[in-house]
């Protein structure tokens, strides 16, 4: 027969559980140079995407693909470092911070990418790195916002986007980028 806990036992158990949960989340560390590497990789990706408009048949496409690969590699390495450093996986961190699906991050990224492509189409090449850096900074700032929200409410923020949603989002990004490139040509 099960014995019901006393109110004092229940209070103590809840307190211990709350402490364990918040202690784990607050003890998590970001890998060194995390934001700077994510910011730089995103800026490189946006900057190289604009190269398609400079030469859309040859090296431009190669440079743009190389930029995407740089961002994927840096993101993958940082996720692996986070996992190795903390002994945990947090899908919210992987998709919203590294994958850039947090609202602030995706909004700033979209605007910066659109701006960089527009600047390239207008042949205002000096504006491309400006938009690229703004996009990179937006990625980093959006990531910091998510991290602070996670520290305040780890249970509510730890879950990431579903795989289906991520695929839809990335397909939409590729189609949107293609439409922008065709529109600007």
């Amino acid at each position, binding site marked *: 027969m*099960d014995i*019901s*806990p006393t*109110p004092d036992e*229940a*209070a*103590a*158990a*809840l307190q*211990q*559980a*709350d*402490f*364990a*949960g*918040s*202690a*784990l*989340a607050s*003890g998590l560390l970001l890998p060194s140079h995390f934001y700077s590497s994510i910011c730089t990789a995103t800026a490189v990706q946006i900057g190289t995407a604009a190269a398609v408009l400079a030469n859309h048949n040859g090296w431009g496409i190669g440079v743009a693909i190389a930029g995407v690969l740089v961002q994927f590699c840096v993101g993958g390495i940082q996720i692996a470092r986070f*996992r*190795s450093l*903390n*002994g*945990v*996986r*947090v*899908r*919210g961190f992987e998709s919203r911070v590294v994958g850039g699906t947090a609202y602030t991050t995706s909004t700033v990224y979209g605007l910066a990418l659109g701006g960089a492509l527009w600047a390239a189409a207008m042949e205002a090449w000096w504006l491309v790195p400006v938009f690229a850096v703004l996009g990179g900074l937006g990625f980093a700032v959006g990531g910091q916002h998510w991290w602070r929200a996670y520290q305040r409410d*780890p*249970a509510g923020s*730890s*879950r*990431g986007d579903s795989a289906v949603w991520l695929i839809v989002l990335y397909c939409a990004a590729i189609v949107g980028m293609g439409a922008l490139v065709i529109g600007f040509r």
Partner: protein
Amino acid sequence: MNDWDSTLQPPARLALMTMLTTVSQAEFVTVQKRLQVSDSVLSKHVSALSAVGYVESHKGTHANRRTTWLSITSKGRSALSAHVSALRNLIADVE
């Protein structure tokens, strides 16, 4: 009505489940260090929680060594939520 869950009654199990709600997966050793329990004690709790479908475990690697990763299931989340509500009701009844 107190629909508290006897599987979650040991404080270490409640702490383990609460901890797993804050991450997607946690390495066995990480959880063990945070809960400050021995290998065998944590293994027993994990086995009990896995048996009722509250926790999943799978083998993986971490820092080039084999390890076990733990995660809470959606059934486990529901059970935890109901159990915590029942405990809060129990406390509220005497206040």
